[in-house]
C-alpha cells in the first residue's frame, strides 16, 4: 500500500515516466561504465550516451546502480 500523502509529483513521475526516448535496462547496464567514466571526466556524458539520462530518471534500480558506481569511483579517487 502507499503511505499517506506520498508526493504527488513523485507518483506522477513514476506513472508517466520520462518523455524522451530512453535506453532499455540491458542497454543501460551495457553502457553504464562508459557513461559514468564520461561524467567523472567532465565530458558531455548525455551526448556521449543518448537516452541514458532519461532511463535513469525512469528506472529507480538502474539509477541506484549508477549512483553507486559513481560514488565508488569518486571514493577511490
Amino acid at each position, binding site marked *: *500500500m502507499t503511505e499517506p500523502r506520498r508526493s504527488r509529483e513523485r507518483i506522477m513521475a513514476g506513472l508517466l515516466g520520462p518523455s524522451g*526516448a530512453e*535506453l532499455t535496462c540491458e542497454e543501460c547496464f551495457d553502457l553504464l561504465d562508459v557513461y559514468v567514466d564520461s561524467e567523472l571526466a567532465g565530458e558531455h556524458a548525455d551526448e556521449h550516451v543518448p537516452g541514458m539520462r532519461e532511463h535513469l530518471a525512469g528506472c529507480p*534500480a538502474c539509477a541506484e546502480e549508477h549512483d553507486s558506481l559513481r560514488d565508488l*569511483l569518486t571514493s577511490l579517487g
Partner: protein
Amino acid sequence: MAGSVPTVWRTTAPATVDREAEARVWLAALRATGEEREDATRRLHDLLLRAARHELNRRRAMLAGTDRETIDDLAMESADDALTAILAKLDDYRFESRFTTWAYKFAILEAAVRTRRRAWQERELPMDPDAWTALPAQTLGPAEDLENRDRLRAVIEAVRTDLSPHQREVLGALVLAEVPIDVLAERLGTTRGALYKTLHDARRKLRTVIGADT
C-alpha cells in the same frame, strides 16, 4: 532502445593511452594460464569484493537486522558471481571505459540485486486492486490546485480504462507499492528488462491518453 532514439552514437571516448594499456594488461593476464591468470583473477576478485561491500554499505538501511556474517557472505557471493560473469564476457569489453569501471559495475549489480531481494524475502507483493481508487486521497493535499487534481484523476482513469491487466499490475507494483524491479521480476518469473518494457509501454500509453507527449 525502449523509445525511439534511432541509434546510440558514441564518439570515441578520449581514452588515454594509460587507460587502454591498463586494460590490455588486465585482459592479457586474465586470458593467460597458470600463475599469471590466478594472480590476476585474485586481484580482480579483491576489487570486486570492495565494490560489493561498497554497495552493501550504501544499502545498509535495507539490510537492517542482518548480521555482519550474512552481509559478508552477500559480499563474497556478489564478488564471486561478478567474477564469473566478467570472465565469461571479456570479449565484450570495448575499451570505452576503464577496465576496472567496467568490472565494478558487475559487482554492484550483483550486490544491489541481492540486497533488494533479501529486503523483500519475507514480504508479500502488495498487489492491491483498490490502490488506484485510493490514490487521489493519499496523494492530494487539501491545498492542491484544481489542475493537479484533474491531471492525476485523468491518469488514474487512463490506468483503469486504457491499460491491460498486466500493465496495471506491473505499474501498480513498481510505482505505487515501490516493489524493486528485480524482486517483481523474480516473483513473476520474468526478467527486469521485460518488466521495464511493460512499464515503458504503459507509461507511453498514459502519456498519449492525457496528452502529455504533445
